[in-house]
């Protein structure tokens, strides 16, 4: 570990914290449906969309209607993308003349992008035409992100409103977030990325003759416009196979920093927005504090492990940290930090190959996802996931003192706790169930590239990533098979929507409740004790559930690495 490395990590954290309130304020304006300066330009677009689609933006929806409209819209987008991918060969903007995307791969990809997972069973440069990247994938990057944020708004309203049946209007939330937040930021980011060396062209590739006289063909495309929303929307689906490790996606340490900030900035802002929505920004800061503790702890361990390097290579005379799968321009700290950021949020972009991390360095991204991606988390999904844990935490605190738990002015009763547990329990059930299935079937065991415990880690990582809607991979796994494409597709769908529906039910149930003013007996949810309780609940739940599987994978791998045992 170096001074420079820690400078980057702490500097990154400081910038992020400074962005929390400005971003939170902007999000709060959208949450309230207030006018922003951008309405002058984009207001007519918003109103035009509503008029054509017959949407009345002020018509409030109950949680069921909000959920049904959201689900149908997402289902339609999925079918649309499936069609674009399958018809790619006959559609325009296909300079490399790529054939149609195969059935199970198109199925997997369409679900993957709808569920904000962006798991890539494919290599972008040799599978997806420019039109597929733009029309099939980029729109999901926007709309799965705005869907996530809209859902968070709905849950905030559940906490903030009193004795009402409604939690907002899905179409208005989704449209405003897309037009007034994501699109303008992406336009700015795209220009910055292009200036830094990210291509933006409709050409498919360029041929050149290298200095040594060899032929090299470089894949090109409209990369920058997709890169911007890929990070900002915590999507993570790369234009190229190597994702943000590819120099065309992430050409410099500066773009790398911008990408990491993009992943976190909306999630961080949403914690502030939540506090503001429930009338006390300190509620938001408490959540952010718990998140940052988990984030910095994970970063320290991952950076330490990667900087420590692989003793098996040291024995061969190789010096320094673990550089297998890493880019020199980023080095150890920026790669370890990126891996934690991308898995703490449900982004899944990678600037280094997690599969080649040391065992402990790879355990951290895996464990981050298993915690439910509530450390900042995906845009919207992170905060609503975190609030489910907060409901559990006040419930536990209530049990300890023998009082009906309250949180931000709402009584948390049996219905909310049951629904929260339901949403949280889906995650381990599917991850562990599907991993077990893949570990005992021929089709599952055909997947891993690496042997021994690391091979098991590849399978466990894949299902964890899919259910947690992350999309990063221990990419040695050959996943473009009917078995994995199908099972992972199902896992991604469950991981996204089987959490959302109970969460919206909680929002509806909370909105109907009266406000309970804090009293002397209320457990304070702004101080250090609360932050500690939150961190404890998240770690204990995640740890108890997943420790056995981690012992079989990364921990066994680590012990083998120390002993120098190879597979």
């Amino acid at each position, binding site marked *: 570990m170096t001074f420079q490395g820690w400078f980057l990590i702490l500097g990154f954290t400081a910038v992020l914290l400074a962005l929390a309130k400005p971003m939170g304020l902007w999000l709060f304006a959208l949450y309230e449906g207030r006018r922003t300066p951008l309405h002058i330009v984009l207001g007519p677009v918003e109103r035009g969309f509503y008029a054509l689609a017959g949407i009345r933006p002020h018509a409030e929806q109950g949680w069921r209607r909000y959920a049904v409209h959201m689900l149908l819209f997402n289902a339609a987008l999925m079918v649309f993308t499936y069609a674009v991918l399958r018809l790619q060969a006959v559609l325009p903007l296909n300079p490399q003349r790529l054939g149609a995307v195969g059935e199970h791969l198109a199925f997997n990809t369409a679900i993957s992008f709808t569920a904000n997972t962006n798991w890539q069973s494919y290599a972008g440069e040799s599978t997806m035409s420019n039109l597929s990247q733009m029309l099939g994938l980029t729109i999901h990057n926007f709309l799965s992100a705005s869907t996530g944020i809209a859902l968070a708004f709905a849950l905030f309203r559940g906490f903030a409103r009193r004795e009402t049946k409604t939690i907002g209007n899905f179409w208005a939330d989704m449209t405003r977030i897309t037009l007034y937040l994501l699109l303008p930021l992406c336009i700015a980011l795209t220009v910055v990325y292009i200036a830094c*060396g990210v291509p933006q062209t409709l050409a498919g590739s360029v041929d*050149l003759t290298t200095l040594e006289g060899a032929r*090299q063909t470089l894949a*090109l495309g409209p990369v920058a416009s997709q890169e911007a929303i890929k990070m900002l929307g915590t999507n993570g689906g790369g234009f190229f196979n*190597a994702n943000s490790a590819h120099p065309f996606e992430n*050409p410099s340490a500066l773009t790398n920093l911008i990408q990491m900030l993009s992943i976190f900035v909306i999630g961080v802002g949403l914690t502030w927005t939540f506090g503001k929505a429930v009338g006390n920004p300190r509620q938001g800061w408490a959540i952010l504090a718990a998140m940052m503790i988990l984030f910095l702890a994970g970063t320290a361990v991952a950076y330490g492990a990667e900087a420590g*390097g692989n003793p098996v290579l040291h024995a061969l005379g190789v010096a320094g940290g673990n550089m297998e799968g890493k880019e*020199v321009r980023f080095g150890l700290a920026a790669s370890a930090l990126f891996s934690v950021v991308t898995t703490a949020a449900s982004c899944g972009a990678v600037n280094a190959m997690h599969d*080649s991390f040391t065992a402990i360095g790879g355990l951290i991204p895996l464990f981050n996802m298993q915690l439910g991606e509530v450390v900042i988390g995906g845009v919207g999904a992170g905060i609503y996931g975190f609030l489910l844990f907060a409901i559990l935490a006040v419930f536990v605190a209530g049990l300890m003192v023998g009082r009906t738990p309250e949180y931000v002015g709402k009584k948390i009763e049996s219905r909310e706790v049951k629904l929260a547990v339901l949403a949280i329990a889906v995650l381990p059930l599917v991850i562990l169930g599907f991993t077990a299935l893949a570990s005992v079937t021929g089709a599952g065991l055909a997947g891993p590239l690496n042997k021994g415990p690391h091979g098991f880690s590849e399978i466990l990582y894949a299902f964890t990533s899919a259910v947690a809607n992350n999309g990063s991979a221990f990419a040695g796994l050959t996943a473009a098979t009917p078995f994995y494409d199908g099972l992972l597709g199902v896992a991604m769908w469950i991981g996204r929507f089987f959490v959302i529906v109970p969460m919206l039910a909680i929002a509806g149930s909370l909105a109907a409740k009266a406000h309970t003013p804090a009293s002397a007996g209320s457990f304070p949810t702004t101080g250090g004790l609360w932050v500690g309780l939150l961190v404890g609940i998240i770690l204990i739940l995640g740890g108890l559930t997943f420790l056995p599987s981690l012992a079989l994978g990364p921990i066994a791998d680590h012990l083998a690495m120390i002993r120098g045992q190879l597979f």
Partner: protein
Amino acid sequence: MNNDIITALRPTIVMTILFAILLGLVYPLAMTGIGQTLFPSQANGSLVRDRSGRAIGSSVVGQAFVSDRYFRSRPSAAGKGYDGLASSGSNLGPTSRALIERVTIDVSARRAEGISGPLPADLVTASGSGLDPDLSPAAALAQAPRIAAVRGLPVGRVRALVEAATEDSLLGEPHVNLLALNRALDGLGR
């Protein structure tokens, strides 16, 4: 419930079409126009051209250097090495026999070229993309004596070249762009 579905149909269909046009076509095409106008070089891959105008590489993407006359590039898992259509890392884990065997072979080769002492890790490990354009300064400096011998240059001059080409970065790690370095090397010879 039925009513919920019926009320969703028109917005679902119309918004899918409208957003597909706005986000899937207008946005990327407009950005392509802006990029091509403001930053034509970067937008088309930051190509580096020789005096005759022929593209010989990209200043951001790596290419293979295998000859003794040039600073050698890192091992690459992209296709057969630095394949610009097949970016990839090796994805081999820390206890992989295949990884250790590959590194062992590369270590012997570097030793045979006269590099002694601890080997800079990036010299014998594959990058994440397989298209890494850089080397660490240490990995470049370790090759300086070989380059100097092959090209008949004083070692000091080759080292100075590496130091001049080293880009320091507070946000990442110091690195040397290999294409720029090797072109500078060719420039020395003339």
